[in-house]
């Protein structure tokens, strides 16, 4: 039985008591067109898809994301919010709009780096958890902040691998390992994934899932990159569970050393 099927059965991702077969979470923005987006989502095998909440353009609007994505667990984000207040209102509008209390919480501290504002993030997380939201915060690769978010009641923590949209992969694997080793809730690597090996590495470090958007949406072939990410997450997860060999600084022959010809 192929490994990803086995893990489907035995090894599901659980967030807020909900179970998922796929450990890849995917964004819906920036694809060449809507059809490519839908095909890429399908190819990715993801069950959770992020959306944003924005002001209606009053001149009417395109087909609703809600209908398009009805087969996905939607995860609205608060992308672009720079204060806890804006993030909380955005989350509440998202709940009304999408009839979900799940939210990817972002409180941005700096428009250029898009790094989180730790204080605002903790404040908004606290408020939203108390209002009954299932909060998945985009946060720093900082074990203390991650721990505080978990202790506030967040359903998962989503530390950044590198700058949003940068494709730089995991700039600080040691920090991610530290977070994983101490987190009471699932750890989802969010932001910075550029290619398949980045996603596999995140899973090998012990992350419970990977959330990405740009790496697929802006790839030359988004649909095939979505498949690559699906396989990479499955591969990294399976490798983590299979118990990799230790790194050692000396060589070790694999073939038998006895019975050499002519020796």
């Amino acid at each position, binding site marked *: 039985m192929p490994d990803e099927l086995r893990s489907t059965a035995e090894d599901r991702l659980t967030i807020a008591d909900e179970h998922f077969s796929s450990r890849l979470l995917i*964004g*819906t*923005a*920036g*694809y060449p067109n809507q059809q490519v*987006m839908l095909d890429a989502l399908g190819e990715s095998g993801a069950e959770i898809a*992020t*959306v*944003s*909440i*924005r*002001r*209606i353009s*009053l001149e*009417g*609007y395109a087909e*609703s*994301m*809600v*209908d398009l994505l009805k087969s996905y667990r*939607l995860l*609205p*984000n608060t*992308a672009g919010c720079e204060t806890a*207040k804006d993030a909380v*209102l955005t989350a*509440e*509008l*998202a*709940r*009304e*709009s*999408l009839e979900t209390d799940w939210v990817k919480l972002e409180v941005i501290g700096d428009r250029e780096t898009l790094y989180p504002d730790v204080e605002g993030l903790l404040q908004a997380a606290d408020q939203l958890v108390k209002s009954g939201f299932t909060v998945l915060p985009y946060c720093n690769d900082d074990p203390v902040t991650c721990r505080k978010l978990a202790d506030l009641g967040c359903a998962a923590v989503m530390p950044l691998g590198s700058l*949003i*949209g940068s494709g730089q992969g995991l700039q600080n694997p040691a920090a991610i390992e530290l977070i994983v080793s101490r987190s009471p809730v699932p750890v989802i690597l969010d932001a910075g994934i550029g290619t398949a090996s980045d996603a596999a590495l995140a899973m090998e470090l012990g992350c419970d899932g990977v959330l990405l*958007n*740009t790496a697929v*949406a802006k790839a030359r072939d988004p649909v095939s990159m979505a498949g690559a990410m699906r396989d990479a997450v499955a591969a990294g997860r399976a490798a983590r569970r299979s118990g990799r060999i230790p790194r050692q600084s000396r060589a070790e022959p694999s073939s038998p050393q006895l019975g050499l010809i002519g020796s």
Partner: protein
Amino acid sequence: MTLNVTINGEPADIDARTVLALLEERGVDPEARGVAVARNGAVIRRADWSETALADGDALEIVKPFSGG
């Protein structure tokens, strides 16, 4: 006589007296899934759109889901 309100950050003179009427006045289908409204920083549940009266100076947010990461 019209009300002076702010809609999605922009000043507007409206005739509507309720959220529901406002959506219709603005050509937003109130049946459309995904539409949500806040008035002065508080969400107005869809069920309350018809009763919720608007007042001069109200700040309204009318939103819907878009693609996002």
